[in-house]
């Protein structure tokens, strides 16, 4: 599988998060899930999308420490490269 770039992941994650409610303009790497009103069900769905598209499996324990959008992007990229 070709290497996944951080930029590709960022753009896909922003697209997915926007589908859960927040405006795309509000979503930055520094945004916290709390301020975007993204809850655990949204993160479950994000994990499904990430698994379908990048083959990366995110379990509950991986996700519980994620605070910001940047945390999620970095985690996905690091698992995709592993």
């Amino acid at each position, binding site marked *: 599988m070709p290497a996944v770039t951080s930029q590709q992941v960022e753009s896909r994650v922003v697209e997915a998060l926007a589908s859960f409610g927040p405006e795309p303009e509000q979503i930055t790497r520094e945004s916290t899930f709390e301020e975007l009103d993204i809850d655990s*069900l949204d993160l*479950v*769905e994000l994990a*499904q*999308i990430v698994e379908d598209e990048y083959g990366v499996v995110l379990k509950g324990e991986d996700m519980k420490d994620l605070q910001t959008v940047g945390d999620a992007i970095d985690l996905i990229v690091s698992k995709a490269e592993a």
Partner: protein
Amino acid sequence: MSEREGCALVTGASRGIGAAIARALASDGWPVGVNYRTDREGAEAVVAEIEQDGGRAVALEADVADPAAPDRLFDALESHWGSRVLTLVNNAGVNRDDLTPSLRDEDWSEVIETDLTAAFRLTRRALGAMLRARTGRIVNIASVSALRANPGQSNYAAAKAGLIALTKTAAVEVARRGITINAVAPGLIDTEMTAGLSRDLLAAIPARRAGKPEEVAACVRFLASEDASYVTGAVLTVDGGLAA
């Protein structure tokens, strides 16, 4: 018959309540996966009947207690019709009745695995696509034995009560995605599973008769329909008043 964007899976649908549910969903326009464990002939007869009535169905072999069953069933259905499973009916169930002091470990675990754990695994698999689709229907076939004690069924009652708790908890988790999860609790229904039971039981039933599989299926058809969009986390008893 309405055009459906997804398909339905009914487990344990080669006979009895499951077969009636498969027929009822098919008559409502659902393409139906008719799951069976060993009764292939029964499942294919259900498929033939559905097709004869203008519906769509396919027989799918799997023991739902097998951890690999959900992926096999869902992958097969999704590729057969090119659509996601958007209605799941967890109907497959077994009983191993005996009084509690005499129940063996395997009598306990087989019933829990098939009647409860399998439903959890199938629900988990179904919710992935349903979350993405922003719609879905899961109906779990429980039993009045989960609501009102019936001697000789502590294993079955525990599994079915667990199924009701799973129904309610999962329902509130996913309700805002347009997914409903409900349970139907049949009482004494005329099927092979109850054929050996004494008809003296009828005296305890306010309606003074056993129910028909079609009467349970009608409730499942309602819960799977658009009309039931605001019904979730509910338990619908179909028991002629037995547990009232």
